[in-house]
């Protein structure tokens, strides 16, 4: 067999409700899944025959039930990839799916690349030539997407933080390597003293970063997207059009929505939590007042704001007040009611709505909605959204790398405790550095040697 490792991925689109399937393939598939699975019949998966379904629970390291699942076990070679394959049918929602996937990674599986199951199927001789080019396309599109994501992340707070951790680690590595390769070099800074503590400090930092990943709001709740605008500008209509169902009450009486409505929307695997807000205006109605207050809070907490403007009526005083509130946020301006025609001059557009994404739609006729969805999706993929203020690991792959980095550093700490020598735990230090690098999409190797020569005065 060509592949040594075991891959896993969520093979249904990330969404809310319904059943989500995680597929696992590779030589340790059964061993890995068995570690986190407790069958209702209490039997080990290792003893199960091929092509069987078992009911049971996924249990976390702490012993908590993560999800109720159906386990489909298929032994090699009669599987899609010609390897051992297990499909875990989880009971939906991105939260349990991700939690199960995380457990799999902790037990030794690796997140599959796009098209990797198909690639394995092909390389293991399962599928025929006709399908090959499709696989190539998947692999290629993957490169582009991950490239974009990497670039997007680079700007973010996360990458700054990871880079800082990397540089702490690099300094430790460089000190060790220089002491190995230049044993007679007299260092101004001590080589081995202190770094044990430095490693523990770094471990603490990485662990707390991992916690933010575990509670990662975006994957759990979706991107908080507030639809705002003055009353009766079509907020609920937009919400309904996006959801294609009548979630919010739509009337033409201004002030109908008095509460913030939450609904989930899944755009090509990216979850959005839509907040339909009460129209913002000065009002004497007590109930409506509460709604308005809530809307204002929604604006403060939103990751993305869709501000609606009535293109027929144009930009009015009330709009300007709201514009003032949202102008420093991540906001799209949506010119609604295009079906009635636009009465906003280019000049006014430039004056009030410049510098942000502006889209024209008709919620009523469902016109321009696809463009809006694409814009929302791209906005997230390009890394423009960081949920909350902390650096967040939103991506499962990044989380996997972080977990591996922590594992490697744990091994370093353990080795130091056992009194093992530098050449041993250097292996894990290098690994940890590499894992951190892959979070932000950077490779290493020659960097270490560059670091040696720039930091230390070495030579004959």
């Amino acid at each position, binding site marked *: 067999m060509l592949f040594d490792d075991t891959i896993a991925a969520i093979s249904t689109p990330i969404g809310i409700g319904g059943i989500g399937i995680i597929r696992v393939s590779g030589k340790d598939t059964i061993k890995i899944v068995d570690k986190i699975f407790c069958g209702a019949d209490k039997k080990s998966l290792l003893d199960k025959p091929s092509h069987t379904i078992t009911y049971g629970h996924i249990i976390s390291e702490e012993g908590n039930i993560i999800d109720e699942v159906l386990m489909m076990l298929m032994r090699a070679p009669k599987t899609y990839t010609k390897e051992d394959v297990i499909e875990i049918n989880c009971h939906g929602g991105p939260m349990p799916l991700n939690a199960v996937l995380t457990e799999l990674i902790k037990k030794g599986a690796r997140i599959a690349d796009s098209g990797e199951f198909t690639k394995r199927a092909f*390389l293991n001789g399962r599928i025929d030539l006709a399908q090959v080019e499709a696989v190539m396309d998947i*692999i290629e599109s993957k490169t582009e997407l991950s490239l974009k994501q990497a670039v997007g992340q680079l700007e973010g707070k996360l990458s700054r933080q990871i880079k800082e951790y990397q540089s702490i680690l690099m300094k430790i590595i460089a000190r060790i390597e220089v002491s190995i390769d230049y044993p007679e070099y007299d260092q101004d800074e001590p080589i081995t003293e202190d770094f044990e503590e430095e490693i523990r400090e770094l471990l603490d930092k990485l662990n707390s970063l991992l916690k933010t990943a575990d509670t990662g709001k975006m994957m759990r709740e979706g991107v908080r997207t507030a639809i705002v605008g003055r009353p009766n500008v079509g907020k609920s209509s937009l919400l309904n059009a996006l959801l294609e169902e009548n979630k919010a009450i739509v009337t033409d009486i201004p002030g109908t929505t008095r509460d913030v409505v939450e609904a989930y929307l899944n755009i090509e695997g990216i979850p959005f939590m839509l907040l339909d807000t009460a129209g913002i205006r000065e009002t004497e109605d007590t109930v409506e007042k509460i709604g308005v207050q809530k809307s204002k809070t929604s604006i403060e907490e939103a990751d993305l704001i869709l501000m609606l403007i009535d293109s027929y009526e144009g930009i009015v005083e009330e709009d300007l007040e709201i514009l003032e509130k949202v102008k420093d946020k991540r906001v799209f301006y949506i010119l609604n009611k295009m079906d009635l025609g636009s009465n906003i001059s280019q000049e006014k557009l430039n004056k009030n709505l410049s510098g942000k994404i502006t889209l024209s739609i008709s919620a009523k006729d469902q016109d321009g909605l696809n463009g809006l969805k694409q814009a929302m999706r791209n906005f997230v993929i390009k890394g423009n959204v960081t949920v909350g203020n902390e650096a967040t690991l939103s991506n499962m792959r990044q989380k996997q790398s972080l977990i591996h980095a922590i594992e490697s550093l744990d091994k370093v700490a353990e080795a130091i405790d056992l009194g093992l020598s530098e050449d041993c735990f250097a292996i894990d230090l290098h690994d940890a550095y590499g894992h951190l690098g892959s979070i932000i999409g950077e490779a290493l190797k020659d960097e270490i040697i560059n670091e040696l020569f720039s930091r230390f005065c070495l030579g004959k």
Partner: protein
Amino acid sequence: MTYMAQKIDIAVIGGGHAGTEAALAAARMGKKTVLFTMSLDSIAMMPCNPNIGGTSKGHLVREIDALGGEMGKNIDRTYIQSRMLNTAKGPAVHSLRAQADKLKYSSTMKRVLEKTPNLSIKQQEIVDIGIQDHQVVSVITNRGAVYECKAVILAGGTYIRSRCLTGESIEYTGPNGLKTANELSEALKKAGIELRRFKTGTPARIDARTVDFTKMEPQHGDELIVPFSFENREEDIRREQFPCYLTYTNIKTHQIIKDNLHRSPLYAGVIEGTGPRYCPSIEDKVVRFSDKERHQVFLEPEGENTAEMYVQGMSSSLPEEVQIDMLRSISGLENVDVMRIGYAIEYDCIDPKQLKHSLEFKTIEGFFSAGQMNGSSGYEEAAAQGLLAGINAALKVDGKENMIIDRSEGYIGVLIDDLVTKGTKEPYRMMTSRAEYRLLLRQDNADLRLTEKGYKAGLITKERYEKFLEKREAIDKELSRLKSVYVGTSEKVQKILEDKESTLLRSGIALCELLKRPELEYEDFREADKDRPELSKEIIDQVMIELRYEGYISRQLKQVEQFKKLERKLLPEDIDYDDVYSLRLEAKQKLKEIKPISIGQASRISGVSPADISVLLVYLEQKRRSNKNDK
């Protein structure tokens, strides 16, 4: 005018560390070999530091020895001080280093060449290389002698179109004022070989009689030395050793340098070549690390019967009088007399990406290149390449398959793979951090890793090979014995543990588990372990390393397994990368330039991404299946 001089198998151009190893290997493998050198008095000369080995370089020498090369034996014959470095650290980075008697090293090596059948050495300058239909056919000397041959090994060192610089003075010579080879560059360019210019340097040599050693810290050799050659025993090569001395530069030294920087050819812009970062001149160090108040200076004897001492740490191309001033500012060197002045040297070398792993040019059959000529630096790096080039040239002449050492088998493999796959922007120095399987590539197990290959090539005698097999078997046997020997909670055992401040046993345990404890030694259980065989220290060391580092070693072995899988996925030589669907443009260009032999090598090329590797894998499988269908 030319004349036909001789028909031979292999011509070696250059008699330095690469050339001598290449010539010896070729001749020992039965090939009629001629080594051409600019001067017979400079065979295996050490124009820079008077030592062999050191971190990672020591590993290279041990590997050379395991393969049947000469460097390890020659330094064992001529060392005047020997030390194992890094002993406070783990076994993977223990590194052997010996100070050499330079003159003796050179003359002894010359004698070895003279005694080798099939080998003749000639003081002749090669000015041209005959190539027909992309196949090397001859070498031509400056006096017109034509030597017809089947393979040529280029090992020109730093002698190709070289010039030495000391301040404003420029001499168009090789190292040590020796003649430079000015015509070979043109011949290489004519053959389509791309040349580049590198730079390196050496410090002054001083008169030991004018040094106040009382102001310095002496550094002595080890009492119990480890021979470089696996064929030698410590007791057979024991001899009187001579110390080195440590002193430091100071602020005054640095001021002298700063005041005269404008006169350094490097800073004045006279030097065009690329110098190594790891081997900076003292002026470089003072500029780049300006906050450092002092730099180490080691004085090393150049031999047993000479007053000359090498001033390690003071490599410089500043003008002579500035060098003298700065040396005299150093504690203990106040009245020093300089015997040879330091200089920078610039020379032509090739871009090693033009070579295959066998060190043969991709475009010219039978034409090999080794050593500093390939952009490396250091005697050991040169010797390692020379040995491999010699072996592969001989195999080529016999129509046999190449001998390649991969990255998991030795530092030699890392060295050559780095050079031919990644190339180098500065003279390449071996470092342990370059080896990804450092824990496996230890100096102590070089014989276990490579003797087999050396024997297969015909460079290891049957006698030595059998001895090696016995050693290997003894290690395996003892390891499995220790796994099966159980020690109980007897008073005797608990007493041993108590004495060593080790945790007492609660129940029986395999002896091998107990030996994993860092505080315990093999010897501690001599009494308790009654059936143990009488074993040499070497074997016990191997057993203990295997036990203690088992976890890490097995992890690295697993990585190696994965690595080998990709190395075995060969890329066909005639692969047309333009034809590979959805390979990125940059990857296509790099792949076309390097022509990697395997998927593994391709994955190490900078600019080839994991996605490109996936694409290549799919392409290969596609090709394989369509070929199968055609048949």
